[in-house]
């Protein structure tokens, strides 16, 4: 494990990011507020997948299912023309996603490698077609959330998620809570066991760890956090559709954590922001004119270049000059040595 002095700059970076996000509404317009709320939701979603892929080494390609279930549960469980109580709606939505994660995890974790990837994708596609092809999910049109949930205590409303600023603040608080929870989890004995499973599962079993319950617990926690992100997304937009469970979104969140830097919580945070901002950039007609319609191309090429040039993701940028200096010095030494031999 890394020492305290190694951790301090990283903790400061995260504190600065989260602090900046707390102050952002003071300077933001309504578009910016909505955009950053969406990005923070993506960051929570990316953090949930980071626990599986970056920490435990389980590449899940169906994570959007849990996100979508959290979002659909928020809408479907809300009364038609009355505000739902946040105190039960949020836990119920998260529990729905966690329950599906338990079913998917219990079966898919019996497989490994590419089979695991395909089984998780298959389960996600099953969930996708349930909301797409049945009246339950409103088909391709999706469903609207007519009244946003509220938090009431003793008959008075403490929090109404209808306002843009309120949902921003609530999403920020959830992001801080998820980051803190995962930070705590990864330093714990449970988290270290997950890191050991990622490094060498065979060795973990030989030292006495029954690895399956650990992986299943990680899968369910991850699914629950993805469900929280989905809940926030559904409540923020007041609308859900089957695309929230699509494999495109599962792929996008995977790209976020790779782009940011696998194996680090702050990588998920940075990756979510980078992905969403790049998406906005390439979609901008003010910059790209008619070519903005082909934003996927620009985004794809940028991601390919980032992955090729930054093996440790965007958070690896900090150590890049030192790495290049090291390589240049190595080459220079090699050249000098071969010169001496000649």
């Amino acid at each position, binding site marked *: 494990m890394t020492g305290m002095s190694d951790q301090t700059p990283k903790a400061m970076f995260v504190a600065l990011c989260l602090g900046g996000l707390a102050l952002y509404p003071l300077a933001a317009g309504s578009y910016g507020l909505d955009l950053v709320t969406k990005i923070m939701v993506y960051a929570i979603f990316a953090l949930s997948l980071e626990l599986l892929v970056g920490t435990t080494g389980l590449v899940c390609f169906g994570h959007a299912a849990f996100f979508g279930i959290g979002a659909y549960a928020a809408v479907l469980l809300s009364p038609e023309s009355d505000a739902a109580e946040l105190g039960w709606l949020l836990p119920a939505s998260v529990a729905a996603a966690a329950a599906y994660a338990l079913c998917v995890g219990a079966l898919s974790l019996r497989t490994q490698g590419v089979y695991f990837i395909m089984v998780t994708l298959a389960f996600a596609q099953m969930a996708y077609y349930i909301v797409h092809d049945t009246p339950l999910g409103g088909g391709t049109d999706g469903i609207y959330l007519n009244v946003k949930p509220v938090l009431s205590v003793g008959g008075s409303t403490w929090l109404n998620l209808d306002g843009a600023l309120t949902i921003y603040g609530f999403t920020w608080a959830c992001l801080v809570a998820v980051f803190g929870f995962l930070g705590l989890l990864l330093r714990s004995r449970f988290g270290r*066991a997950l890191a050991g499973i990622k490094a060498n599962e065979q060795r973990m079993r030989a*030292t*006495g760890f029954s690895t399956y319950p650990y992986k299943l617990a990680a899968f369910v926690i991850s699914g629950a956090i993805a469900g929280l992100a989905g809940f926030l997304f559904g409540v923020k937009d007041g609308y859900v559709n089957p695309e929230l469970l699509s494999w495109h979104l599962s792929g996008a969140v995977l790209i976020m954590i790779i782009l940011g830097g696998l194996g680090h919580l702050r990588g998920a945070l940075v990756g979510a922001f980078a992905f969403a901002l790049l998406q906005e950039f390439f979609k901008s007609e003010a910059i790209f004119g008619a070519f903005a319609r082909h934003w996927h191309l620009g985004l794809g090429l940028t991601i390919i270049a980032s992955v090729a040039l930054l093996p440790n993701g965007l958070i690896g940028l900090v150590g890049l000059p030192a790495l290049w200096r090291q390589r240049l010095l190595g080459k220079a030494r090699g050249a000098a040595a071969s010169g001496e031999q000649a």
Partner: protein
Amino acid sequence: MSDILLRGQGITRRWGGLVAVNDVGLELKRGEVHAVIGTNGAGKSTLINILSGEIPPSAGTVQLLGQDVTAWSQPRRARAGLGRSYQRTTVYPGFSVLENCRLAAQARTPRPWHWWQSAQHCDASLGAARQAAQRAGLADVLSRPAGSLSHGEKRQLEIAMCLATAPQVLLLDEPLAGMGAEETDRMLALLAALKAQHAILLVEHDMDAVFRIADTITVMVNGVVIFSGAPAAVRSSPEVQAAYLGGH
């Protein structure tokens, strides 16, 4: 309790039509290094995998500390006192030496899944880890990343990780593979020191080392035990010489 800590009886493993291990029996006693030798494909690794619970036998039983553990999973056997190392180094390269040992020791702590307290505050696993590293001769490199250790040190770390789980029996699969003379001497000294408290099964190709350290040698050919006895008896056995040693 008897000094026999691990007993295998009638162990057989079939892979389709191939019989990798056929009716093998052996006993491991505390204070004894029991070596298993044989050519490649003799069934040594399959045998160690069956004993450790990594693969189930097609027939036969395994008893650990007098208990039938044949149906037990590998992690359960490990928690009951069966430690093993692998042919290929399986340390966690990104972790420090201490963390490698601490993680191994964690499996034996009362709540290895504890999720809110930092692992660095787990005194039980840290204490066991330090002790294991010291016994394996790694006390001076505790904070070094395992990936930066020499090959010999990595093999020592494998043993240290086994020791951190407080095993009674050690199953060591080619712990001397790829080692130089100095590293081999160091490892043999370590095994000699460990055998007083443990029963050790040693699968090894280095014949000089085997004959220096082993108290009992079992010779396998094509999945079958052709001879088992003291090193001197193995050395003078005509059938062993014909089948394997080539007049060593």
